[in-house]
């Protein structure tokens, strides 16, 4: 049960938790968190595979892939959060604007 296998299995478990969680939750922020966890799982598997080198430094190629993967997953998370935030504000305005007095701080859509 060498160390890389432990982390690879943990990465696979993370992937499953994230993927199933993504499809079983409705709330947008929860689903974004789940997709982030799925991404971490895949990247953990990749880095665990890099650690299989018997002696000497780990294999740098998966490290570069994971660096790219983290930046891509952060970009998609940030885009998802931006969309969710805008939607929440529009919905809030839609439900509260009829009886709400005109907004003071110039917050028009």
């Amino acid at each position, binding site marked *: 049960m060498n160390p890389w296998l432990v982390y690879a299995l943990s990465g696979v478990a993370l992937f*499953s938790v994230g993927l199933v969680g993504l499809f079983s939750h409705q*709330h947008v922020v929860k689903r974004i968190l789940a997709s982030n*966890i799925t991404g*971490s799982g895949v990247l953990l598997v990749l880095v665990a595979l890099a650690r*299989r080198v018997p002696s000497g430094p780990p294999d*740098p190629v998966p490290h570069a892939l994971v660096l790219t993967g983290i*930046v891509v997953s952060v970009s998609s998370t940030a885009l998802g959060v931006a969309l969710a935030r805008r939607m*929440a*504000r529009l919905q*809030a305005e839609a439900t509260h604007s009829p009886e709400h007095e005109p907004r003071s701080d110039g917050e028009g859509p």
Partner: protein
Amino acid sequence: MDGLLDGCLALCLPLLAYLVLRTESLSQAVVLFVAFGLLSALGWARLEAPDIALVEAAVGTGLTGALLMHTLSWTEETPPDVRARARRRPWALLAMAALTLLLGWAVLALPADSPGLGLEVDARREDSGVKHPVTAVLLNFRGYDTLLEIAVLLVAALGARAVNPRSERASSEAAKDPLTGELFRMMTPALLLVAGYLVWVGDHGPGGAFQAGAILAGGGVVAILTSRMGTPRMSSLRVRWALLTGPLLFIGVAVAPLFSGGRLLEFPEKYAGTLIFIVEMALTVTIAMVLLMFFPGTRPPRTGRGSAR
């Protein structure tokens, strides 16, 4: 002794991830998610991947966590129907276990000690112009991936900015606030120094454009949240130049050899190191600017929820 730490860490990660998704209240889920990010940064460190631990801690946990908490003040805490969730939970657990077993079966079938491409990278590292293998792969051997990835960052920034155009200008009353003013003044020089060091050290040690960009963005986020600096807006030319110098330089360096009969992204032998360093400096500014653009500057409108002011 190491096995115990690895085993415990490898076990905690999925459990914490499951907890993140199971907690009903959103703010608690986000806090647990930040803890999960820090634990996974520890995992990267245990797997001897310092570059990734740096980026995970700075970007994956720091910025994403701050972004999620910043958003929570907007999204309504929709009351979850606990009964439906409870009915579905055993099925979800069953699906997770089945998927883990299936994928675990494949992982166990992998060869246990294949060196991967490590040997090839070490063989060709001298003529990549950079000593640190990860930076060599990231910017020279697979530089094309990084070029497309910068495009991914630009698209995400454009999408996030397009959707949240309103941003607050720096307000003067924030400057007088003793707490954040002092923090800001004390932190900024150290931050710039660390970011510069990280870009420079990327040549022969763990570091590089992403880590440095993330550190700079961290400082910028503090400035935005303390409304000392408005979110960078695409409408101002300075922001656009800061954002796009990196990509333009990278494309220029990539395309230059084509005119002299060489191949795309073929760095000339002698100048490879310096060219990579210049491109990384410009990319650091781009990455920091993009990560800052994800942050809306506006105070969340307190509509509907009468929280005591």
